[in-house]
């Protein structure tokens, strides 16, 4: 039903340059696209700017009579966001950087290395800043699919459409991404344990 509603809104924007229809669509995707850009672009201001640009581009695309009709708006807006971010990095002459994990003060004094499950449960659920930083340390293509799957709640087939890969590849990327994230968390916990021992 949501899909049909979106198609109707897209139609109204394309055929009638309907501002209220655009506003409805914009409000649905506003926060999601904002968070998505912030996960992919480290600079806060640049991320803000890119998020706004996405919607300006959406308006321009939908109201342009020469462009192809959009069948799946959700896939379209995420593809557009990815393309804009790629262009952004290209203009900057660099590739997406992973953020180095700073030492985060931790009240849980580890005398010996804890199981990763405990770390995830205690650290990640309570300290979102910590998890956010761990996420930004994994490879960009892993991070992207993990965000789309678990934050944006998009199914595998649609993610495959957005990232232009097969659904089997997407599943593999998600699995590797989670493994990578776990390794980073484990390594960090081990480092902290060692640090405590040294201290």
């Amino acid at each position, binding site marked *: 039903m949501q899909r049909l509603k979106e*198609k109707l809104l897209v*139609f109204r924007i394309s055929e009638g340059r309907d501002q209220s229809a655009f506003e409805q669509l914009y409000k649905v995707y506003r*926060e999601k696209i904002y968070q998505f850009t912030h*996960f992919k672009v480290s600079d806060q201001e640049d991320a803000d700017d890119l998020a*706004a640009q996405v919607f300006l581009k959406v308006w321009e695309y939908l109201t342009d009579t020469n462009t192809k009709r959009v069948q799946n708006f959700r896939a379209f807006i995420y593809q557009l966001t990815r393309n804009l971010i790629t262009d952004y990095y290209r203009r900057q002459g660099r590739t997406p950087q992973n953020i180095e994990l700073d030492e985060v003060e931790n009240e849980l004094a580890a005398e010996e290395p804890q199981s990763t499950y405990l770390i995830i449960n205690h650290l*990640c*659920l309570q300290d979102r800043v910590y998890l*956010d930083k761990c996420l930004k340390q994994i490879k960009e293509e892993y991070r992207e699919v993990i965000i789309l799957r678990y934050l944006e709640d998009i199914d595998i087939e649609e993610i495959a459409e957005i990232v232009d890969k097969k659904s089997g590849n997407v599943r593999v990327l998600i699995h590797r991404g989670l493994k990578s994230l776990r390794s980073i968390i484990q390594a960090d916990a081990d480092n902290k344990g060692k640090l405590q021992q040294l201290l």
Partner: protein
Amino acid sequence: MNHKEEKALIQAIKSLKGAPSAGWPTADAIARMDDRVMNYVRAQSASCKSVGFFFMFKMSEIRHFAYALASFIFIIVSAATVVYSSNALPGDTLYGAKLAVEKTQVRFTSNPASRAKIQMELAGNRLKEVRMIKQEGGVPNGRMDDALTRFAKDVNEATDVLKQAGDPVQVKAAASEIVQKAAQYKEELADLGQEDAQPAGTDTVIEKGENLPTTQSPEDSVVPLPKKRVRIVGMAAIEQAEQALQNTQESLVNENVGTQH
């Protein structure tokens, strides 16, 4: 990575949704973005034109949905017509639909022996209609006559169709069933004919506006009463059918005897 860890990790990631520390926009950020985007759109958009309902049918997706909805409504209406017409009586609006449904049932049966059995069952429907009209009471207006005439027609058709059947085994089985039905209908007709029995000499129909005659005799009867029609039309049809079935059964026996020799 074990399943427990994976599950905990996924849950932790999902908890980032809505968290400002994980990039979720603050109210200020939203306000800034709203200003920028909507000002641009307002500047770009022409005066809004409302898209008419029929104009929206350009969308193939809406068209497909509309066709599906129309088909669904058609099926529902057809089903409702079949259900409501099943109780229709001669003279009712849906009586034609009822007969059409019955005719379809016969047409879609390819086997003549089965068709004959169905035809005989449909004759039973006509008898039910006669009974229902009788129960309604009121001034006779030809409806019962209509039902009885159709009853006779169905019975005759049943025996005619049975003659077209080729397989003697099927014919024998069908004939046996039809004979049973005929006996049942005979009883019902007898009941209908005997119900509300009146003394002789009172078999007249009072026409609207006419005064009741003070002396009555059978010779004065002009319009036959429904129960007379029951005897004339209904019983006659049954007797004719019984004769036809008897002939059919005799011919089957002769064929058997012939093959044995």
